């Protein structure tokens, strides 16, 4: 399948920027009342960046405490609040909003639509988030400690023994969940109803496909999480006993409910990342994506399988042996569609004429390091091995390898890839490459030793450790600081690009880029496509791809 997208005409006369009244009030009104998909996308990306720096600072506090054994820097309870909030904010405040932000910017442009299907809903789903995170962060100022039971907030730690601030966390999660659900409904409505005439579902860009599947995942799991935290709330205050053994409840039930949400959730975090990588690799390899149909089916298969593997998080919580076996095999089965995706990506770049611009560097790093994280995941799936590995730093190494070079790197790659389109200016390539090498090397310095620490038996979520773990912990801490500060280069690069410091970007930006968004000028008009472009499909069109606007280079 090789689509050639030809924009019939784009009438630049209709183009206008955001309507903004003068002064500070005008500025606030523009951003608070905006229903424009690009503005809302920018807001999502901004809140993700702010949260990223915040939760990253928490990670650095954790690593500082772990630089030496013994209690040195922060109190144990504060350490626990740091691990909890780092996890909660990174998952709900960074990775989820960043991909919703990318979806807002890109999906209407990729489909040839003027905007999202439900613009006012879009505004609301974003503006719920600042309130949710204000509530979540306010727990630091509530007496009796912020949430301190890990991001999984297992009962009874979060019910019977939870600090009073737990209720604030519960409501923050309710609001975040509402935001995700509204955002997902909007994305599904946009994808199903707003495609350019002639574009069939199986002709959509991969990023749009992965988001369609992700949105359905979110619609199915966020209500379950909302139900779970509501049960926590009633257990805490209204005398129910869903998770309290004394009243006939069962704390294990909490784990089932949480991971029924939690496992599909990790695919919510990674599927849009797969979509981004599937856009970037073909562009810089100057080839079309290998096995498009299989990529779509593999994504759907991963989404389906994600619902029937949740018990692998609970092998040591007391699971009958038959159930453990079933969930072990179903977990390992996920490696098949994931393997299809990895091999298809490799086949995409195979024999391509590759150039190594910053987005491509991050995409290739994704390919290697996400696979590494997948392999340690397979090790954890083995029931007897999991008895040994669970709750050690091996688990920490595993999920950081899939989330940092997986989700975070692909989000960074996406920003580098699309920011020339968004702003009309190229980012600083030298700084981009410096950011890439610093972060990639320091990431491995940080997380690779954690494999060894875990195999040697260092438990996670503990502020202190035995003396023999000191060396690897010190290496990890040094790496973490380099990794954390390398993102200031990224931030600087973004700000400079937004301020228009780089050279002007062309329409197509990248030589090998294809899709509706590259037929719009850079930066694109405020309402992307006022007249739907015509989608034309051609059987073999490597040449046809390049003819449309080469002359403007």
């Amino acid at each position: 399948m090789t689509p050639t997208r030809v924009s019939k005409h784009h009438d630049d006369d209709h183009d206008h920027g955001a309507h903004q009244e003068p002064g500070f009030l005008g500025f606030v009104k523009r951003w608070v009342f905006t229903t424009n998909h690009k503005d809302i996308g920018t807001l999502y990306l901004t809140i993700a960046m702010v949260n990223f720096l915040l939760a990253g600072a928490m990670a650095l506090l954790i690593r500082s405490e772990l630089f030496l054994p013994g209690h040195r820097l922060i109190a144990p309870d504060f350490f626990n609040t740091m691990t909890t909030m780092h996890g909660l904010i990174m998952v709900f405040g960074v990775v989820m909003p960043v991909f919703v932000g990318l979806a807002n910017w890109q999906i209407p442009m990729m489909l040839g639509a003027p905007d999202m299907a439900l613009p006012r809903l879009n505004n609301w789903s974003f503006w719920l988030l600042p309130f949710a995170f204000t509530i979540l962060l306010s727990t630091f100022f509530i007496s009796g400690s912020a949430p301190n039971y890990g991001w999984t907030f297992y009962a009874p730690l979060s019910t019977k023994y939870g600090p009073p601030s737990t209720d604030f966390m519960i409501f923050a999660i309710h609001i975040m969940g509402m935001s995700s659900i509204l955002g997902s409904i909007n994305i599904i409505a946009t994808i199903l109803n707003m495609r350019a005439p002639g574009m069939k579902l199986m002709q959509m860009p991969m990023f749009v496909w992965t988001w369609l599947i992700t949105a359905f995942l979110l619609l199915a799991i966020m209500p379950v999480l909302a139900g779970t935290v509501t049960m926590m709330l009633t257990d805490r205050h209204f005398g129910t006993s869903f998770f309290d053994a004394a009243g006939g409840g069962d704390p294990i039930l909490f784990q089932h409910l949480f991971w029924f949400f939690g496992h599909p959730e990790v695919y919510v975090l990674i599927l849009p990342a797969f979509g981004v990588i599937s856009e970037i690799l073909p562009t810089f390899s100057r080839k079309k994506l290998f096995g498009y149909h299989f990529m779509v089916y593999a994504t759907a298969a991963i989404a389906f399988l994600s619902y029937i593997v949740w018990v692998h998080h609970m092998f040591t919580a007391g699971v009958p042996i038959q159930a453990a076996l079933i969930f072990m095999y179903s977990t390992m089965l996920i490696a098949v569609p994931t393997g299809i995706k990895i091999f298809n990506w490799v086949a995409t770049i195979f024999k391509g004429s590759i150039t190594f611009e910053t987005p491509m560097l991050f995409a290739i790093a994704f390919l290697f390091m996400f696979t590494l994280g997948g392999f340690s995941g397979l090790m954890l799936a083995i029931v007897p091995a999991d008895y040994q590995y669970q709750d050690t730093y091996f688990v920490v190494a595993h999920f950081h390898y899939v989330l940092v070079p997986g989700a975070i790197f692909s989000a960074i790659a996406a920003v580098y890839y699309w920011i020339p389109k968004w702003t009309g200016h190229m980012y600083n390539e030298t700084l981009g490459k410096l950011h890439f090498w610093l972060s990639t090397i320091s990431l491995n310095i940080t997380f690779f030793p954690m494999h060894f620490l875990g195999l040697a038996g260092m438990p996670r979520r503990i502020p202190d450790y035995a003396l023999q773990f000191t060396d690897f912990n010190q290496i990890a801490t040094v790496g973490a600081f380099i990794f954390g500060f390398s993102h200031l280069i990224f931030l600087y690069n973004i700000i400079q690009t937004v301020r228009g410091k780089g050279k002007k970007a062309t329409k197509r930006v990248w030589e090998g880029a294809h899709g509706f968004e590259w037929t719009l000028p850079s930066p694109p008009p405020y309402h992307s496509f006022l007249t739907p472009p015509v989608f034309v499909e051609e059987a073999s069109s490597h040449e046809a791809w390049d003819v449309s606007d080469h002359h403007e280079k």
Partner: protein
Amino acid sequence: MKNDFQFLREKKQRRLVIALTSFVLMMFGFGYAMVPLYNVLCKQLGINGKTSGRVVLDDTGIDESRVITVQFLATTNAYIPWEFRPRLRTVRMHPGENKAVAYFARNNTDHEMTVQAIPSVTPSGAAKYLKKTECFCFTQQKMKGQEEMDWPLLFHIDKNVPKNIHTITLAYTLFDVTKSHAQVIESNQGHL
């Protein structure tokens, strides 16, 4: 001015949003439906070590070819200053044989407290074969300050118990249910 195309699209849009919203509500309900579903599944498969409720005395005969060791354990949940222990540590019995044992409980505080004992059977596969005719765990137990008592337990082991089970451990944990949950949380703050 709306043309036919836009009108059709809006109609389609509304139907889609209604369908998706009902799906969300359904999944919220599904979360709650997991609770009874989980309990029924655990009970039917006997997989989380919980014993079932009251059964009638077994008088269909004793399988004397087998002997099963039953061990008794007792623990109190945190913050309950009670003494709680089985009178007998172990009994050896045949499947089908009715046994009566007792747990000793003493309220070491000076005020009246209500407690609930929660059973747990190991191996969990044995849970549905351990049948109780009478148990102090069937109801909440109220005792005055400094009061002590022997609590009865009358049970038998089903003759269909799998051949590989030779030892069954029955553990009881005592939970304080005197106060409402909110009060418990408050009183625990100091310890956290």
